[in-house]
């Protein structure tokens, strides 16, 4: 409580309270009021997170802005919040995206506006809770609660096959979460009655087999969210059917939650199992990078293409984690943030086109640049960043992960680097077919360029992508101490043999 008030509590609850306020505006007669309150709430919620960055002590890996109250004393569960150099970035990223999502849905969403805006605000608060929780049950509550608004968002405002996608999304994630709950209860028993994540980090886990079971339970929860290779199938469905805002939040935030789980739970709690199973994790990551990259190449639906590209990029993140060196780890974290900006921006771009033409198929477009030059320029920047062009944010993380991978095994790096080709291929080929060439049909001929509202959103994202690409130090700087601490922790075996 640096400023004399529990900053993290405000960061979590302010958007939720605004969400409820928006909900209270009722039906669509007050749609405009709902939009305005939502925007004010989203912007305010972002502004209150800024002191987290400015007031953050970069020298220490300890938890900061800690709030700790008794919650459920019977089970020794606390309302315990705090951020370190890793989680603080994601709280910021999440709060940064909420206003953008609200603005992106400003005109497009016409039915049940209040519920739409409220769902996003509430989800934003819950996601902040996930990143800031230091108590395992508190984490679990936020983690699960976040499913509810997303389920509604996909199911109510999504595309034609939305029900299937929403239910699949929910059940896939719930399966993993429930097994994680079993692992948490087991850890609770082993630790002698604590639910503190930091106690879990420190406690002994002497038997490797027990560690492996815990790892697998966590893996089920986190790999579904990331998503990693064999359990990724919900993501393209969910992305395609979700409304634009939903896709943005899914790609920019939700996927990060899974990866965050690996570094907050799996790796420090069961380091030996992490080492033991690292080859499997690396293999799955590389399959995601290469195979899913190839899958992306064949997509005819733009949203599906970006969805597969997300899976492929997230493969980089898990690869970076499980090679256990500073380059890999920091690269992976930077990649997560960059992917948030870029994938979010790409989904917004597709949203812009979809709002005008009502199609996501690449073949329905062509020659868009003739009609929407400003849009084409922004789209170009994000596409380049997605394919890892130096100078954009997409490059930094990928480069560092590849550099880290070289140190471990040349072939890991070789396989991972293939994404520089595939990524460029699928992104730029899509870009070419959609944007360049002659005007393909009447729909495209009647396109009008983006308005001020959309320009603001894209400009903000473009600045972020460039800034991070040209000068990543502020991002890397803040996570440094925590990453080092994590690596030291990982290098210390809990099993003695």
């Amino acid at each position: 409580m640096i400023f004399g008030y529990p900053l993290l509590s405000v960061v979590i609850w302010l958007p939720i309270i605004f969400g409820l306020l928006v909900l209270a505006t009722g039906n669509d007669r007050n749609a405009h009021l709902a939009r305005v309150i939502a925007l004010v709430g989203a912007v305010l919620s972002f502004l209150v997170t800024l002191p987290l960055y400015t007031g953050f002590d970069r020298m220490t890996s300890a938890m900061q802005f800690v709030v700790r109250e008794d919650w459920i004393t019977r089970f020794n569960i606390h309302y315990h919040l705090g951020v370190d150099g890793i989680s603080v970035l994601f709280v910021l990223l999440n709060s940064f995206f909420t206003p953008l999502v609200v603005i992106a849905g400003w005109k497009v969403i016409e039915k049940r506006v209040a519920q739409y805006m409220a769902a996003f605000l509430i989800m934003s608060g819950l996601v902040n809770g996930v990143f800031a929780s230091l108590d395992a049950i508190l984490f679990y509550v936020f983690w699960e609660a976040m499913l509810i608004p997303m389920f509604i968002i996909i199911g109510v405002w999504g595309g034609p096959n939305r029900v299937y996608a929403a239910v699949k999304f929910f059940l896939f994630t719930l399966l993993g979460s429930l097994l994680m709950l079993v692992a948490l209860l087991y850890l609770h028993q082993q630790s002698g009655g604590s639910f503190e994540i930091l106690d879990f980090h420190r406690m002994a886990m002497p038997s490797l087999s027990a560690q492996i079971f815990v790892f697998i339970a966590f893996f089920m929860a986190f790999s579904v969210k990331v998503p990693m290779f064999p359990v990724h199938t919900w993501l393209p469905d969910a992305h395609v059917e979700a409304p634009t805002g939903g896709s943005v939040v899914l790609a920019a935030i939700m996927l990060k939650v899974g990866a965050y789980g690996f570094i907050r739970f799996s790796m420090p709690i069961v380091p030996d199992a992490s080492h033991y199973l690292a080859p499997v994790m690396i293999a799955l990551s590389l399959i995601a990078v290469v195979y899913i990259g190839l899958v992306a190449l064949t997509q005819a639906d733009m949203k599906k293409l970006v969805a597969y590209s997300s899976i492929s990029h997230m493969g980089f993140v898990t690869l970076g984690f499980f090679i256990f060196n500073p380059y890999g780890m920091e690269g992976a974290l930077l990649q997560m943030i960059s992917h948030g900006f870029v994938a979010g921006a790409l989904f917004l771009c597709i949203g812009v086109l979809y709002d005008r033409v009502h199609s996501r198929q690449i073949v329905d477009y062509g020659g868009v640049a003739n009609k929407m030059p400003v849009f084409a320029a922004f789209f170009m920047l994000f596409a380049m960043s997605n394919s890892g062009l130096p100078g954009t944010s997409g490059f930094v993380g990928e480069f560092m992960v590849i550099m880290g991978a070289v140190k471990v095994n040349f072939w890991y790096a070789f396989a991972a680097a293939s994404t520089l080709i595939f990524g460029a291929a699928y992104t730029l080929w899509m870009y070419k077919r959609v944007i360049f060439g002659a005007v393909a049909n009447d729909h495209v001929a009647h396109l009008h360029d983006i308005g001020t509202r959309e320009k603001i959103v894209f400009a903000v994202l473009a600045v972020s992508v460039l800034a991070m690409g040209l000068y990543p130090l502020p991002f890397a700087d803040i996570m440094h101490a925590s990453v080092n601490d994590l690596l030291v922790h990982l290098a210390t075996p809990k099993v003695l043999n």
Partner: protein
Amino acid sequence: MNLLASLSPVYAEIFLLVMVSAILIADLFIANHTKTLTYLLVQLSLLGCSLITVATHQDGIAHLFNHMFVDDMMSDVLKLLVYLSVSMMLVYSRSYLLMRGLFTGEFMALALFATLGMMVMISASNFLTLYLGLELLALSQYAMVALQRDSAVATEAAMKYFILGAMASGFLLYGMSMLYGATGSLDVNRISQVIQHGAPNKTLLVFGLVFIVSGLAFKLGAVPFHMWVPDVYNGAPTAMTMFIGTAPKLAAFAFVMRILVEGMQPLMIDWSGMLMILAVLSMAVGNITAIAQTNIKRMFAYSTIAHMGFLLIGVLSGTIEGYGSSMFYAVVYVLMSLGGFGMIMLLSREGFEADNLNDFKGLNQRSPWLAFMMLLLMFSMAGVPPTVGFYAKFSVLNAAIQTGHITLVVMAVLFSLIGAFYYLRIVKLMYFDTPESHEKINIQPDSSLLISINGLAVLALGILPGTLMTVCAVSVQQSLLH
């Protein structure tokens, strides 16, 4: 005078008995067909009971009538919850029953007699009192289900309920007589002592135990003794279904506690294995069969079966922690069930039962608030935080993990995933689909206020579950201190 003071633990029961008799007579003179006065009297009696129970509460355990009757913290807490649940059930069902001409004095008298039966069950410490309370409850329930004389479905349900219920009672009696043969006593605490210190015939004892567990499983509706549940839930008028599905589960929990835990703790190793089979089967059959249902009352029936399986997990852990978590589960289950059935009645109209899943289609467009309440209830039943249903599952699973039942916990978790599907389907129908009818929902102020409180309670208790958990745990703990 001294006698009167010594009777203080049963004041509530005596008061209720007097009130029911008075209401039965008074009702004859109340001509008004809405029966407002009777209704108010009934609610007042329940309120009176709660005041008396609170006022006569004392620390420690008081035995009465030659150890036939016990008053401890668990019984007081459970009784208060039973009053609350019966009273809520009456509020929910008033307009529903009025529209069907079933809101009669007899109905209310039966409800109160059933309440009395539950109170006796909860406070029984002798097999005879237990059986007495159980039969008083059961007979009132049979009659309540049969109250709708002109409905063939309801009559059939009543018949099935009666026959299977009678069989279950037979099982129980048979088991009790065997235990009596083995131990020479019907007193719960005495039996426990004899098993521990004496040398009763083990075969006879376990044989009796099997019958008792079967009887209990019948009453709880655990698989494979669950056959009556779907038919009765489906056939009975929704108000009666609500009654059967709520407060009696609290009494049944007390019943399990008194017989198995207080009476046969030394045989835990035996009954815990039996309960495990019941629990796994109930969760499996309940959750999987519920998916195939199109009638929401039937779906709730199977969901109840699954919930009972979960509840048994806490009991079979065999720790005070576990019993406390089961009690918490029972309380939470009752709260959610009340809301669920309340919603069905709220959406029903004269001559129309909203008991088909499709009747929930597009509820969000017809009434966003009701849809939101139902969403909370459904997510709570599925055990998704931040609703209280999560903590119910959480505490039960935690108790099981503490005693090393990891396989059981993983199975429970997987079945609850299957369960999440059909609860999710209701949310899907309400939010994602368009309504089949735009008929205005006939909202009664009292029941819609209550459903709001009910839904929000599920959320509020989910955010701050600590107090209720502690109350349950402490009351179980207190009652097991001998």
